[in-house]
């Protein structure tokens, strides 16, 4: 069991020792190991991308009462490879009017920065690219690079649809970064660190953690984080940047062949990264009961989150651009700020360790009681916010219906007088 548990770190140590014995302990060897690990992580992410495309097509097909890919291999499992071969051998045409450097650089940038997110994500105990002390910050910073790449693609293509897609992207991705940032904040406050490993440790019983996943303590943050995560990756129902039925494919309409494949890869790798970050921040990452190794727990949790995202994609219609902006700025952002204040006050008043009580005062409670108080408050704020939105939406709809009814009555009266 232990051997299975530490499989990844044992193999990693063995490879590192081999390289050290070949090159000796010097910075060059360190860099060689870092390079090797980076290439392994990038390859793993690319494989995850292939698995994800298959899973998405199969699952969305089932939701829409179709079978999905079933010709290439058993259950269509070889479909991603067939797609890959097609992408490699497809002609790649650049429009005459495009701004070539910008046009060619955009897919490369989006793919590289999507892969770079994986540098800080912990896959299993001791299996992490690098444990940066600004981990979550790095994820947000690297994640926003895709905005620039999409803007470059839309502008460089010199196509009206692409440009419209890029405009929308700026408004959407830039806007939804705010609630994402504001909802990582409560997690950092309760952890006292931005390192993703520390966040996981806080959610386990080791190293002074309470063993409670943050989704129970911060339900509102988890909900808003996943919503803004979907918007950040441009997935349905927030796929305005590539709305097929309105602006054909948005920013990547002019791309074909391998460059299109890189956009596709960037999008799916980002989705996977957001799910991994969500699992790490709110579901305890690789932590779980000892019956399964850590990386299996991580895979299971990520699978559940991804299935949820695909379920949303198969169920919800696309939102309008004004609805998108209103939902963000008038609902998510104020609610997140209120949530931060509530978490700050309550976690200072109800403390869980005697040390914190003697240092700063407050009421000493069991971690479970604190979870109930924080979680209950979060749920209360969420329900109140949703209730306000529902009331406002209903008022707007009723007003619209009344105007329509009045207009209809007027038309009927005109028709009657003409007779």
């Amino acid at each position, binding site marked *: 069991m232990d051997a299975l548990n530490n499989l990844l770190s044992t193999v990693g140590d063995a490879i590192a020792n081999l390289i050290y014995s070949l090159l000796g302990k010097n910075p060059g060897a360190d860099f060689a190991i870092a390079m090797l690990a980076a290439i392994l992580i990038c390859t793993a992410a690319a494989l995850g991308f292939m698995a994800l495309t298959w899973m998405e097509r199969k699952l969305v097909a089932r939701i829409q009462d179709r079978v999905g890919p079933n010709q290439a291999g058993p259950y269509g499992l070889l479909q991603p490879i067939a797609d890959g071969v097609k992408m490699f051998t497809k002609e790649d045409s650049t429009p005459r009017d495009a701004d070539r450097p910008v046009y060619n650089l955009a897919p490369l940038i989006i793919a590289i920065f999507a892969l770079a997110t994986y540098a800080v994500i912990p896959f299993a105990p001791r299996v992490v690219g690098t444990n940066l002390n600004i981990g979550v910050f790095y994820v947000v910073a690297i994640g926003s690079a895709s905005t620039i790449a999409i803007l470059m693609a839309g*502008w460089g293509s010199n196509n009206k649809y692409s440009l419209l897609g890029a*405009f929308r992207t700026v408004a959407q991705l830039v806007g939804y970064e705010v609630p994402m940032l504001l909802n990582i904040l409560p997690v950092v406050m309760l952890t006292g660190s931005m390192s993703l490993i520390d966040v996981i440790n806080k959610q386990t019983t080791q190293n002074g953690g309470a063993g409670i996943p943050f989704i129970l303590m911060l339900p509102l943050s988890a909900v808003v984080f996943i919503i803004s995560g979907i918007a950040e990756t441009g997935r349905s129902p927030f796929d305005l940047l590539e709305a097929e039925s309105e602006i054909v494919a948005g920013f990547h309409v002019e791309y074909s062949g391998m460059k299109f494949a890189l956009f596709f890869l960037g999008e799916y790798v980002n989705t996977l990264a957001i799910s991994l970050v969500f699992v790490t921040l709110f579901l305890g990452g690789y932590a779980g009961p000892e019956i399964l190794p850590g990386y299996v727990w991580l895979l299971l949790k990520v699978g559940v989150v991804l299935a949820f995202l695909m379920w949303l994609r198969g169920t919800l219609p696309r939102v309008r651009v004004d609805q998108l902006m209103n939902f963000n700025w008038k609902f998510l952002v104020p609610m997140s700020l209120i949530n931060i204040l509530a978490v700050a006050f309550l976690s200072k008043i109800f403390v869980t360790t005697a040390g914190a009580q003697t240092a700063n005062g407050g009421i000493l409670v069991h971690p479970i009681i604190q979870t109930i108080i924080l979680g209950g408050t979060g749920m209360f704020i969420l329900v109140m916010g949703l209730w306000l939105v529902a009331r406002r939406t209903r008022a707007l709809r009723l007003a619209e219906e009344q105007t329509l009814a009045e207009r209809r009555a007027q038309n009927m009266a005109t028709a009657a007088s003409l007779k």
Partner: protein
Amino acid sequence: MRTDFVFVGAMLIAGLVLMGGALIAASFLRPHKPTKTKLDTYECGIETVGDAWVQFRVQYYLFALIFVLFDVGGVLLFPFAVAFQQVPLYSVFILAVFSITLLGALVYAWRKGVLEWD
């Protein structure tokens, strides 16, 4: 500390090598037969008129301004969040003042009609 970021650099290089490699490999594998119509800008079959390089609507700029406000505000909140376990209760009131100022800016923009999209 600096060695932590070496891996980030390695990651960027690995991404560049793998993705750039895929692009170069594809350039050897794919056919290349450009024609005049193929290189036209795609516009659902209509011949395209003029350039797409137009000015942005001012609305996007206003949203970008509010974004900068909240992004910088958020960045300033993160050091507070990291130190949150050590600070006394009264610092939460300072946080409240800061957040309410941010919220006030949002309400101001809201009342000015910046958030209306039409």
